[in-house]
């Protein structure tokens, strides 16, 4: 290994290094079984770093990052999309609450191309106003597409109701008026605050040669200095919720949605594992408790729950998509009764075993392909410890029935709840 790096730690076959010159973190997982590799840069900035007036900026900035940089731009005939798609790369970027990531899945002989592009746009992206204007309407159409979906609209309303002070209040796409009006200068400021090697993690998974790749990363990213300022942290905390909340969305549609959300702890909290098992017991699969009581009874077409581990507190949300004619209240009562049953009586050992088996398989499937690994690792990087990915299953295996009952009692608390209904205004077009 080059002396340009310091080895930080290893876990689950993944090695972490620090590029000494600028504190860029590098994660590597080598698997030469197919001639494909995924290169990804995760910036530790997401919509939690935004505030009123520039919600959606992280995402809009992510779009502008494809518009050109010093060495990769249309003017030179080296546009980012052209350079990468012409070699058959799968390329994209995503923004979420706690992170922004840019990735390329490439035939492994083209790894250098992906590295050079990501390094170039880390500090030399153009971010021109003439690019922001047409891209704003692109992003606005992305927002509009989301607004077409009753689920998306209800989900945004639930987060906005559950979180009042904390920036998880607004969705990553942002509010429409902010998307339309945020200035290019504000986006540049955002870029200059957060897009630095010491606020990023570069990850490479798949078919590569370690020393060569480390050298390439040092060659291209090494030209950047670390930021001259401290990366600002978010200090806004959500005040304690002191009672149940409700939100109702009414508009044209065909059938209703009932959603029940409860505040959940930050992803790195030790309760996260028992909460994940609780979610599986309630909603995952045809033998889960709520599937039998809603979908099997013809009351819902489908249901699911999510509790994505985030950097800060999250939401444990169950969604039920109702069959026409089913009342929101009916399904709400069923879900809450089931919650009460677990709070009062706990769960069976057989339910724990089933949930752990499901998670064990999910973890194994998440290693099928270099992008799948990178994608899962990306979320662990976002919450502050990539080892969350490599140690997740071991910690899940330690969850007991008593743990599940305890977290149900602690978090499925009425005063911490936000209940959302989507009510279709009429069934005609």
């Amino acid at each position, binding site marked *: 290994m080059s002396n340009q790096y310091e080895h930080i730690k290893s876990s689950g076959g993944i090695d972490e290094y620090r590029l000494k010159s600028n504190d860029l973190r590098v994660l590597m997982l080598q698997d030469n079984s197919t001639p*494909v590799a995924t290169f990804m840069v995760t910036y530790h900035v997401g919509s939690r770093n935004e505030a009123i007036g520039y919600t959606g900026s992280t995402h809009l900035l992510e779009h502008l990052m494809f518009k050109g940089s010093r060495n990769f731009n249309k003017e030179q005939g080296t546009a980012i999309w052209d350079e990468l*798609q012409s070699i058959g790369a799968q390329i994209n970027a995503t923004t979420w609450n706690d992170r922004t990531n840019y990735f390329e*899945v490439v035939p492994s002989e083209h790894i250098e191309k992906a590295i050079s592009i990501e390094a170039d746009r880390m500090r030399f992206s153009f971010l021109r106003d003439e690019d922001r204007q047409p891209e704003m309407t692109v992003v*606005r*159409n992305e927002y*509009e597409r989301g607004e077409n979906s009753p689920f998306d609209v209800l989900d945004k309303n639930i987060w906005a109701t559950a979180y009042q002070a904390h920036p998880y209040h607004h969705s990553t796409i942002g509010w429409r008026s902010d998307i339309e009006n945020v200035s290019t200068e504000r986006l540049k400021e955002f870029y200059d605050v957060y897009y630095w090697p010491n606020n990023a993690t570069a990850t490479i998974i798949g078919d590569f040669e370690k020393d060569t790749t480390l050298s390439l990363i040092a060659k291209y990213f090494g030209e950047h200095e670390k930021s001259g300022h401290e990366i600002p942290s978010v200090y806004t905390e959500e005040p304690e919720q002191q009672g149940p909340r409700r939100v109702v969305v009414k508009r044209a549609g065909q059938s209703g949605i009932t959603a029940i959300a409860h505040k959940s702890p930050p992803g790195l909290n030790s309760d996260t594992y028992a909460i994940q098992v609780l979610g599986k017991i309630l909603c995952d699969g045809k033998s889960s408790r709520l599937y039998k009581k809603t979908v099997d009874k013809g009351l819902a077409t489908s249901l699911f729950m999510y509790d994505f581990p985030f950097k800060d507190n999250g939401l444990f949300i169950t969604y039920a998509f109702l069959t026409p004619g089913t009342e929101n209240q009916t399904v709400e009562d069923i879900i809450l009764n089931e919650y009460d049953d677990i709070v009062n009586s706990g769960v069976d050992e057989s339910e724990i075993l*089933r949930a752990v088996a499901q998670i064990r398989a999910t973890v*194994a499937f998440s290693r099928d392909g270099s992008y799948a690994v990178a994608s899962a690792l990306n979320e662990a990087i976002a919450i502050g410890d990539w080892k969350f990915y490599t140690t997740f299953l071991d910690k899940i295996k330690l969850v007991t029935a008593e743990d599940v009952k305890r977290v149900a009692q602690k978090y499925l608390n009425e005063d911490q709840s936000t209940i959302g209904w989507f009510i279709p205004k009429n069934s005609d077009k």
Partner: protein
Amino acid sequence: MKFKESVIIDEPVKGLSTFVIPTKVRDVITISGSMLGGMLFSNNHKISSLTSSMLDKGTQKKTKHEISNILESMGAEISFISSNRHINFTAHCLKSDIDTVVELIAEQLREPAFPENELDILKKRMIANLEISKDDTKKQALINFLRNIYPDDHHNSRSTISDSINHIELVKTKDLNIFHNNSFGLGSLKVAAAGDISSDLLNGLIKTNFDGWKQQKIKQLSNGSLANKRMKSENNIEIKDKTSSDVYIGQTVELSEHNKDYLSLMMGIYILGGNFSARLMQTVRDEQGLTYGIGSTIAGCGYGINGHWHTWGTFSPKLVEQGINSTIIEIDKWYKNGITQKELNAKKTTLNGLYQVSLDTTGGLIDKILTNAEKGRDIKYLDNYTNLINTLDNDNINKVINKYIDPQKFTTTIAGSDV
């Protein structure tokens, strides 16, 4: 990697072919299979859909809860679905559970129970999903586009939502039993597996669980009707409270995948709108900012059937007209001036690279192998595909575009609010 050398093909049971590609992924196995018996094989197309969806609702030996308990206790999944021509199944499991999973697949395919109460619940759920889809601008635009270019009994057409609901309501358990009795069995069954699995292991399990099953009594599919005569038309669907509209523009093309011009036309359409660096995304999205997504593709040309090509894009209601105009301008330029050698060279390397990248997952491998087999192609076709792409000629592509596309006769369908 050469498919010819990597995929082990066998017929462990007469009428059931296996395709196994061991990969280095640890512990994980993906299995997909199919047999003729899709929606086109019954007059009421929903009989096939309901039959396949009822396969996990209980067998002669197990209730649906016993099935789901077995699978979920292993973290495994099995799903069944009907496509136009095939009944398809897919399973994901850990290597340690493969014997149980193959046994269950066989039991569900061979001995379904079709309980009446479960059919009632399933019908209610499917109808509810269809009702919900009335609000889906993309689905509504596509259905209406296809119904405009094809007559009802064309293989590529789609039923209206109302007709689909009516068809579902008519289905009884006896229809499922008759369909299962006639259409399920050995004959056209193909099973592909990838991941941490050997050919010997899969073939042994297939012999144990499928040997002795009856042969399919599949009827010959009719060719269906010819496409509607091409003509310029516009058809709009109003859906309330939508902030984005979906737009399809296109027409039928008189060629199938068997035609020597197919790959040339496919490449021409890919250059127009196959990915982000194609013309439509570069102009209508990247330069003009009119849409989040727009693209073009050729579709419905498999199995010797002539298909269609279309562009699809989403636009804010106020930008729909401008978006359509810009799209048409780009299509006109493409049609009149053709593609360039530079574009062709770039897209050749794109498709070659994408092919390589698609091999990164067991799912990607299996899709390619099974689809190729369903179409009756030798496995060598997969190895030869990149050669076929690399020999495409710029002049010929431009001739083919002019031969099969007629910009004067596009069908346009918009679904959204205030359209």
